[in-house]
């Protein structure tokens, strides 16, 4: 290639099947066959990138990417980008699926989802939906240094939701599980029971009271705490955001930024939904401790950011064959040794926030807002009234410092993270945690 310092080529072949059952009827069965490639070229300090669909002309695409990089660099020269060297990754301990979803007929999948819908159709439930998706992906990677590697991965999962309605009030309950798993994911997670619990949740919420906001001590369940860990802490630890000045964790390595009870880890080698054997730059996946005993230990890196800031690459990911960016994988707050009872006792009066309806953060200012699925009032150390429409907001670092107890019941949840408009599979998790003071929002 003419005058480029680096290039790499990713070719992805994928078949995705999804089934949507709506109110017990098949709403959609769709199969998608995709193939395409993404090519990066680096000249000096400028990246060029091309992507193309189908069986494209690799040489032509590489030339186009190189030309972009070269012309950007000549018009707009800037500091040379260095990349931390990586060796050939070894594929070890790959997830082994028990039941290949391709061996199960679509009819059988449809029947199972219909059964889930039935289990969710409790009295008072006005509508249900059950969704299944499976994908078989083959990723091939090669680069200018002769690195050439590939892997295949099967992912599958399901989501079930139920809406309860009464007197014009609607409330939804939802359960889902996605993983680097085969068809066994249904049985291993008691999918049929989860369907019923989604419905019960919706029914409960109908009679929940809208919450009153205020400053108070709170307990977060594993799911909401996991979302906090991913959204508020995980994103702020992504080195690309640190470098662009969009992270509250800039210049904090080695500093005590959280209660000593807090250890937060990102581990792509775990066989959770965010698993990958090597990242989208061919770097071996490995566990990274972001916060160790309250001290900021490491950011998450690509080859470029690790060369600039120090630290190991291995967190560069993309959706399909887009341009890779720094991403999380399986991110969790590690177990402590408190029990839930100890937390209740400690709090006395406050709120127990459960589940998440998503949220958002501003990593630059270190503020966040998440909506819980539901909450219970805690009065004199007892769990009492069920509340809905509860949110949690505040400053990331304050919350991290206000953690007084970390439970020993770590649980992971799977989902997709949409940073930079690119969806990638991730998981996050935490044990129950207790926070001495937080802003709870209501209506």
């Amino acid at each position, binding site marked *: 290639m003419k005058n480029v310092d680096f290039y790499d080529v990713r070719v992805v072949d994928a078949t*995705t099947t999804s089934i949507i059952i*709506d109110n017990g*009827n*098949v709403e959609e*069965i*769709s*199969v*998608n*066959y*995709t*193939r395409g490639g993404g090519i990066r070229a680096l000249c000096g300090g*400028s*990246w*060029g*990138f*091309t*992507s*193309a*669909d*189908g*069986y*494209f002309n690799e040489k032509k695409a590489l030339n186009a990417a190189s030309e*972009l990089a070269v*012309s*950007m660099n000549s018009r*707009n020269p*800037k500091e040379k980008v260095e990349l931390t060297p990586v060796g050939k990754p070894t594929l070890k301990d790959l997830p082994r699926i028990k039941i290949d979803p391709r061996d199960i007929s*679509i009819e059988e999948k449809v029947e199972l989802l219909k059964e889930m819908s039935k289990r969710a159709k409790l009295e008072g439930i006005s*509508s249900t939906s059950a969704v299944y998706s499976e994908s078989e992906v083959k990723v091939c990677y090669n680069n200018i240094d002769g690195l050439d590697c590939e892997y295949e991965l099967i992912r599958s999962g399901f989501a079930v939701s139920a*809406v309860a*309605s009464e007197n*014009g009030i*609607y*409330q*939804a309950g939802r359960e889902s599980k996605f993983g680097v798993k085969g068809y066994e994911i249904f049985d291993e997670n008691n999918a049929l029971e989860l369907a019923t619990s989604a419905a019960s949740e919706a029914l409960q919420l109908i009679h929940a009271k*809208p919450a009153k*906001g205020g400053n108070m001590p709170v307990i977060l369940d594993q799911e909401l705490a996991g979302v906090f860990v991913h959204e508020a802490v995980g994103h702020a630890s992504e080195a*690309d955001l640190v*470098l*662009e*000045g*969009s992270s509250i964790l800039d210049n904090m390595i080695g500093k005590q930024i959280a209660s000593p009870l807090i250890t937060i880890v990102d581990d792509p080698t775990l066989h959770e939904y965010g698993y990958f054997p090597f990242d989208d730059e061919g770097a071996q996946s490995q566990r990274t401790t972001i916060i160790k005993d309250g001290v900021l230990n490491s950011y998450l890196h690509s080859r470029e950011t690790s060369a600039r800031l120090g630290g190991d690459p291995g967190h560069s990911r993309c959706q399909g064959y887009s*341009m890779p960016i720094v991403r999380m994988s399986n991110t969790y707050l590690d177990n402590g040794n408190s029990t839930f009872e100890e937390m209740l006792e400690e709090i006395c009066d406050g709120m127990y926030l459960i589940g998440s*309806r*998503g*949220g*958002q*953060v*501003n990593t*630059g*200012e270190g503020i966040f*807002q*998440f*909506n819980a699925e539901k909450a219970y009032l805690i009065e004199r150390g007892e769990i009492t009234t069920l509340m809905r*429409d509860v*949110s949690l*907001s505040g400053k990331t670092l304050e919350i991290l410092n206000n953690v007084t107890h970390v439970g020993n019941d770590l649980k992971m949840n799977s989902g997709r993270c949409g940073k930079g408009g690119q969806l990638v599979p991730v998981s996050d998790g935490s044990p129950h945690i207790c926070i001495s003071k937080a*802003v709870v*929002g209501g*209506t």
Partner: protein
Amino acid sequence: MYDTARKALSAALKAGADEAEVYLVKSEVTSIDIRKGLIEGSKENINQGMGIRAVVNGAVGFASTNIDTKMEEAARTAVSSARIRGRDPAWRSFPTDGKYPEIKDTFDPRIKDMELDECIELSTNMLEGASSLPDVLVTAGSFSRVASRRLILNSNGIEVEDRGTAISGFVDVITGQEEPTTAYEYDMSRKMDIDFFNLGKAASELASMSRQGISIEPHRTEIILHPFAVADLLTGIFSSAIDADNVQKGRSSLIGRKGEMIASEKLSIIDDGLLEGGLETAMADDEGVPSQTTPIIEKGVFKSYLYDNYTAGKEGISSTGNASRHSYSSPPSVGIRNFIIGYEKSNVIEDTDKGIYINTVIGAHTANYISGDFSVEARNAFTIEKGELARPIKSLMLAGNVFDILRNINGAGRDLRQVGGTVTPSLRIADMSVVG
């Protein structure tokens, strides 16, 4: 393109489909990425793909691919998926009416033929605009140009091709060392009419104005929402409530409320697939139904839900031209076109004695889409005192209900703006709950 589409269509019919439809898109995208005040790189994406719907016995199957050699396999898969589904008595047929309206300003050859040089120049303008104020850093930004073609063919004789272009710019800026404040600005257009320098400058002005924010006590007050906040807060939830599919499935709080007064009597909302230069403007919707203009709210009265061909068929009426696809790889579902919010214009800030002005919100997607309840973080918010933006507010939670907001709108600015598919002025809303 036509050849490929016709081949796929006949493959589906040959595999046993009673009816078939092919949706084919091709697009060329050039984008420029900005990071920390510098142009970091550029991208060129050549995208193409095809979605095939096949009907067997009144059941629809779907498959898609971006691989030419997989096209016939995809067509057969669509047919076999359709066979697995039981007969759907609600299915009527794919669209048949192929008379298309004329549309304007959706294609600009200057965007289609734009070279990399010009893309870089416009991005640089945007950066210079942002840097024209002291102490502001562009943390991230992007520029992009798109030229696309979309072809829809079905076995009922529909054959419609739309061409379109779009150009867009986005900057995210930060200012201040101790207590940093951020702001963003964004614009997108079908033609070359964006002032990129001013776009960058607007983001920096907003971030600078937002410095040294004050804390406020929880209270109820009038608020004014900038078009960005209106689009984020209202469009998603309200469009979900008027989606005929949600209505038919019992997932809307507007079920059975046509003809009812649901909004301020000065408020009108239309869904318009024909708006001149609109981002969602095309001759046809995503299944080949001719685009149209549909009144949603007229002087406060709720007029119509939005339908695609299937949901309309269920009620024995015509589609409103609201079939929409996220990409070639998903079948169509109901979606809004240009969503135009209308209210009598005034100098709405000047006319407000006391209140709060909110530029953007974060967390709108966490709202309850059925009840309309939301609790979001307001960003770049300011107190309004005697008709002027007075002090920036450090941190602010805004809670309420979208359907209450529709009733409580009592003013609109002159700043009509296209934000994605939403076309809206800033709106003033009475009696909102804010927590500092």
